[in-house]
């Protein structure tokens, strides 16, 4: 049981390049999330998914696209990277998203992205 895994762990891009970050979870969770973490800013939600084939915008979606073709995978794409997207990206998943129990989020180890 690996939990939530992310690939790659580190990446350096040049401005304008594209890349895809992969998140995988083996807990059969319906809900998956992509966050970015910047110094002094806490975590900010980029996009999330409430199930296979669904995606929704979070707090800071501009410049990113996502896809959830399979329940266990959630991909985050940067079509044309900008220096402002230099950050640490975290994927998370949860059984439920709402009030009550079972909405604990399980996080991956993060991807450190630098855009030059």
């Amino acid at each position: 049981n690996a939990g939530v895994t992310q690939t790659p762990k580190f990446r350096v891009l040049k401005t304008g390049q594209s890349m895809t970050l992969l998140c995988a979870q083996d807990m059969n969770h319906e809900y998956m999330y992509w966050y970015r973490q910047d110094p002094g800013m806490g975590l900010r939600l980029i996009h999330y998914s409430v199930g296979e084939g669904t995606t929704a915008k979070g707090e800071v979606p501009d410049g990113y696209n996502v896809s959830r073709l399979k329940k266990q995978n959630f991909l985050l794409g940067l079509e044309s990277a900008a220096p402002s997207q230099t950050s640490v990206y975290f994927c998370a998943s949860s059984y439920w998203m709402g009030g009550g129990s079972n909405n604990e989020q399980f996080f991956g180890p993060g991807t450190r992205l630098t855009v030059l």
Partner: protein
Amino acid sequence: SQQGEEDPQALSIQEGENATMNCSYKTSINNLQWYRQNSGRGLVHLILIRSNEREKHSGRLRVTLDTSKKSSSLLITASRAADTASYFCATGRGTTSGTYKYIFGTGTRLKVLA
């Protein structure tokens, strides 16, 4: 400003002492969660408290919630060097559009000195 704001931003204590960190938020919530993040790692869920609860315990952790003051506190008793980490609160609430939002605070960096 962000929904969840923790204070202090940084806290340094001796091993064995208690550590208290606070989280304030602005709008009504369904629940509030606390997470820990060790350096260079992902966040790990510690405890969830619902809006109709006032206090919750888990091992050496004690969380209180005061919805009238829109604030929560996390107390770690008898701290250990291994508790050195950043601690984040996350507030969850439904939205008028029918979705649900989590907002994470900016975190408290705790350093426990051996």
